[in-house]
């Protein structure tokens, strides 16, 4: 082949490859000369969330006609699979909805912007409880603005509780009382609950004992007494064995199918989870339900106000001011919050909480009241889970599954988990 031929081929290849990559390169240029601003925003969630979020965005565009907003949303699992490659390619959206289990990873890798300089400038925080705002601080910087807060609790059907021979959840109940009540329900052929998510509730249990799941630096576990592990998970496994909570086969079989869960079918009294999950559950259960605080002792040391999720701004964003303005709108605009209705957790601004109170559904009101009653009791949150925590949690869940299936003792699991978790966390140390 002659020179000319090769040249032609090369030229064509060049055209083709640049045509491929050219599609993206134009989209980054945020603000342009005529003060038109383009924002990109991403979140995960359910259909309800997508709908009202779009309405809030439309409202914002209506009030700021120079702004156009591109939205990207997905389910929780898909969201992170999409976000990671975007981060690697330095293409994160300007505003990113962030989960507590991932924020460390993104913050520590320099993907997020420190929002501290924007506070009380672009973002008004006068009506926000300082403890709540502080939950967005990672490694000394305000990387996240909480969208709302959550608190752990027991969400149950009072009528079914009575049927199981229990009048009411006692005030200030303890771990031992919980186990007693659960066994009582079990002996009356009703499941007390559907067990507890291993990482969240073990972490709570550790906190009531003055420990935490991870150490402050995120380089290892935050406890070294395996007895705590054995007491907690051994206790839960015992409840499964004695029929107070469903066996793992049933739990696995019905996982993710709310309609088949015992609570919905009326064979289980309640469920342990975050307060913001109450409203959705109430809709499916469709019977009167109630919320109860966590078990003690030292419940006050254990509970904390957890940000439901954060708004964060990408470090690469060219339109950080506008992004901050949007976050402020989300936090402090009454009209917007009448659309949001506390779906991303109880709003962190006291003024907004008051302003939207009359608009709330019965279930949402219950949640707001519950969170309000817990807020004065809560202790500060532990630092967000470190890099590598998804793998640690998966490891924990695996071992607990083996314990629940009766294939491993809690004591063995405690030792194995400690070794594995410390290896994983050490590997991720940077």
């Amino acid at each position: 082949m002659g020179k000319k031929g090769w040249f032609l081929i090369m030229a064509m290849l060049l055209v083709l490859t640049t045509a491929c990559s050219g599609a993206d390169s134009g989209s980054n240029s945020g603000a342009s000369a005529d003060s038109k601003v383009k924002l990109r925003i991403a979140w995960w969630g359910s259909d309800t969330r997508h709908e009202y979020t779009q309405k809030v965005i439309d409202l914002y565009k209506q009030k700021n006609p120079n702004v156009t907003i591109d939205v990207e949303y997905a389910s929780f699992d898909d969201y992170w699979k999409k976000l990671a490659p975007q981060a690697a390619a330095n293409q994160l959206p300007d505003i990113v909805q962030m989960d507590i289990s991932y924020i460390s990873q993104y913050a520590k890798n320099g993907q997020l912007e420190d929002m501290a300089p924007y506070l009380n400038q672009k973002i008004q925080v006068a009506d926000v409880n300082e403890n709540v705002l502080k939950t967005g601080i990672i490694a000394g910087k305000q990387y996240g603005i909480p969208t709302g807060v959550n608190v752990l609790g027991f969400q149950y059907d009072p009528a079914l509780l009575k049927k199981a021979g229990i009048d009411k959840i006692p005030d200030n109940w303890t771990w031992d009382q919980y186990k007693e009540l659960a066994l009582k329900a079990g002996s009356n052929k009703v499941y007390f609950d559907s067990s507890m998510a291993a990482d969240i509730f073990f972490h709570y249990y550790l906190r009531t004992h003055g420990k935490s799941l991870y150490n402050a630096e995120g380089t290892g576990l935050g406890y070294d007494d395996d007895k705590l592990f054995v007491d907690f998970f051994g206790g839960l496994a015992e409840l499964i064995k004695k029929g107070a909570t469903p066996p793992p086969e049933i739990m696995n079989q019905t996982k993710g199918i709310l309609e088949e869960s015992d609570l919905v079918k009326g064979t289980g009294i309640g469920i342990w989870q975050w307060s913001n999950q109450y409203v959705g559950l109430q809709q499916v259960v469709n019977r009167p339900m109630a919320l109860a605080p966590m078990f003690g002792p030292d419940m006050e040391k254990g509970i904390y106000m957890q940000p439901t999720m954060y708004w964060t701004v990408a470090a690469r964003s060219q339109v950080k001011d506008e992004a901050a303005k949007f976050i402020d709108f989300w936090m402090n605009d009454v009209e917007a919050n009448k659309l949001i209705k506390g779906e991303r957790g109880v709003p962190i601004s006291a003024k907004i909480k008051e302003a939207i109170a009359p608009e709330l559904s019965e279930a949402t009101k219950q949640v707001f009241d519950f969170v309000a009653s817990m807020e004065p009791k809560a202790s500060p949150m532990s630092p967000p889970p470190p890099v590598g925590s998804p793998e640690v949690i998966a490891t924990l869940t695996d071992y607990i599954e083996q314990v629940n299936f009766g294939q491993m003792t809690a004591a063995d699991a405690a030792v194995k988990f400690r070794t594995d978790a410390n290896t994983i966390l050490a590997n991720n140390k940077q």
Partner: protein
Amino acid sequence: MSLRNHQSLRANMTGYAFISPFIVGFLAFTLIPMFISLYLSFTTYNLFTPPKWIGLGNFEKMFTGDPKYWNSIRVTFTYVLVGVPLRLIFALFVAMILNTKSRMVGTYRTMYYLPSIIGGSVAVSIMWRNIFSNDGIVNSLLSALGATPVKWFGDPNASLTMLITLSVWQFGSSMLIFLAGLKNISVEMYEASSVDGASPVRKFFSITLPLLSPIILFNLIMQTISAFMTFVPAYVISKGEGGPMDGTMLHSLYLFRQAFMFSNMGYAAAMAWVMLIMIAILTAILFLTSRYWVFYETEKGR
């Protein structure tokens, strides 16, 4: 350069121009990524910080320090070694039925092929999840027959069985190939054997199977390779967790978890390359043994 040469070059240029989209695609989306993945398999890489060279560290961890890896290999081999033969037997069985002369045969062929068109899709897996759920049709049937319902996704042994059932059910493409093979066997063979008084069973083992063996080899290899790479059903049915007790943790699912849930891209790349080599070895073995059981009508067929 002579004139003729020049002309043929010009003619070729058009050809090159036409295939260049493929070449670009192949380079950009297959060959270069493959080399990058090979490089990454010797590193730790979390997508955020630059890859760090660790030599054979990933492979060492895989073979000596990761029981979950071995579990995923065990599950995958069970899935392939049980699922593929069952699927082929079933496909051949249906192909033979559909090879009869019946008026409805066209409709039947389409019907039986349908599951394979919607093949590895998410919808089918979700449907499968519903079929085998607590109140699903399978458990209803079991209770109607007086048997105890099975917790298909709850019991570590049952869940893999269910996954294999799903793979057997998607037998359509191998069935079509078998059907084509069956059509190629000349009727005279059967007629001659009938004259000699051969029973249908004898006909099947002495005529159908030997003449079909090249097709069986083809199907066996194709199905084995694709079975090793199965991902979607395991992911959907176990909600991405490979449970219960890692009973459905296929190799590809474990790889996916390492890559996209734990951000261990290097380790996942290493796993992918080991799987590639394993599939290559297995395929080679199939080819080597084929000379003892595959029969070609022309003597020097291979």
